[in-house]
């Protein structure tokens, strides 16, 4: 009996190690803050969208004193289309302020608000499949093919140069970048080990 327990424990450790070390690159989560002066997610989100869809989840908190409207854009990722879905409560109670999301713009962001954005990336030209979600009412399509293309207009000097694919949040008025989430696209081989 004791031997069986030891064997099962070792098997559980081995399977758990496999699960912990292997990454599925069809989704990644990045955490950041939206703040004046800009910020950057600590690590690039590693994604593989060549075989189909990839999902980037961005969660961020609004750091005081920033308040305003922010546009979300995918930059430097030619050949990709994206659709954004904002996480919202199914039934919205008025306990806390929550920014509205429409047309890839968060409206009325206030200090300490939290946003959770699900960005589905697909290779451009891919035909939607039956496995995909239904057309979204709170979803926003974006299709940016060039570096910086589609970023907010006005005050371009305040926009940092885009050095690679990234999802960026810009203040709608000043065009100042509030948060950048770098994205690293990997090849067809798919998953990789953590920390690679």
């Amino acid at each position, binding site marked *: 009996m004791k031997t069986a327990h030891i064997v099962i424990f070792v098997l559980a450790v081995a399977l758990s190690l496999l699960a912990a070390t292997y990454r599925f690159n069809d989704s990644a989560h990045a955490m950041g803050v939206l703040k004046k002066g800009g910020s950057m997610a600590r690590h690039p989100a590693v994604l593989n969208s060549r075989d189909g869809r990839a999902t980037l989840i961005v969660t961020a908190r609004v750091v005081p004193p920033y308040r305003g409207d922010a546009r979300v854009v995918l930059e430097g990722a030619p050949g990709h289309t994206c659709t954004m879905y904002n996480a919202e*409560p199914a039934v919205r109670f008025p306990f*806390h302020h929550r920014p509205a999301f429409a047309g890839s713009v968060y409206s009325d962001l206030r200090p300490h608000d939290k946003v959770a954005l699900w960005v589905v990336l697909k290779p451009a030209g891919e035909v939607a499949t039956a496995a995909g979600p239904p057309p979204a009412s709170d979803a926003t399509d974006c299709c940016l093919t060039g570096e910086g293309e589609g970023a907010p207009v006005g005050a371009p000097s305040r926009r940092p140069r885009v050095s690679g694919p990234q999802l960026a949040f810009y203040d709608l008025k000043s065009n100042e970048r509030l948060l950048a989430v770098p994205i690293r696209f990997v090849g067809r081989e798919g998953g990789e080990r953590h920390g690679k």
Partner: protein
Amino acid sequence: MGNDATKPSFLSRHRTGILLGSLLLFLPPLAVIIQATSADVDLCGTWCPRMFFVVRNGAGIGEIIGGMARSYMGVALVVAILLTTLFLGRYWCSHLCPVGGATELGGRLLPRFLKIDYSGIPAAPVRYGYLAVYLAAPLIGIGSLCCSYCNFATIPRLFGAPFVEADMIYFFRTAGLINLGLMVALGFLARGGRAYCNFLCPIGALDALVSRFRGRFGRRMQVTADRCTGCGQCRAVCPTWAIEVGERAAIDQLSCMPCRECEKACPEGAIRYGTSD
């Protein structure tokens, strides 16, 4: 300081109702407690009870404290769970946990022939093998089970998916599909609906460890040896296969949560909830 073994308590009689209330409070579409206490929409974020005790390789004390501050409601919840367990047993798991409650209540809606009986697999070695990797893998920097495989992320999104597209998107990813498969196979389809809790929930694993320490004041389910006939009816209803029946029944406190189904099932009144005499 024993209990009256013949009269089921309020908590015993109304467990289903309490669990349903917990689903309404914690899970979509209402998630009243989450919305009332935080700017989040689900159990990820302020209420996350799983991430704060995962220490990542190279993390300084500031980062650890920062992680706790980010999910301060989750920290408070886990501390409250463990303290309550020390004195009263695993009531969070049996009566309040919306995640385990959802799989158990959902599982009751499914026909018996679909159910999978996992009771042949000893739960503790699986649970603590998983917990060991859950804690150690981030610490030594080789990966993480946190977030990628999370029951507290999956169940709220399963409830939210019919209403919110962002929740639906969660399942159109490999990790989301695996989580869904685990919740279905080890939750809804498991006999008793609690195999996920018993095998893979890190909160349940910590809670079970605390449950082992009871002292003089800790209340737990226990068998009155001279009344037990070893009929095994208690074992048949135990959702966490925590009861071994030889000549008499014996309860493994490492797996038992006081759902008190065994107490109700025992024809001899040999199982009761209380302190050790």
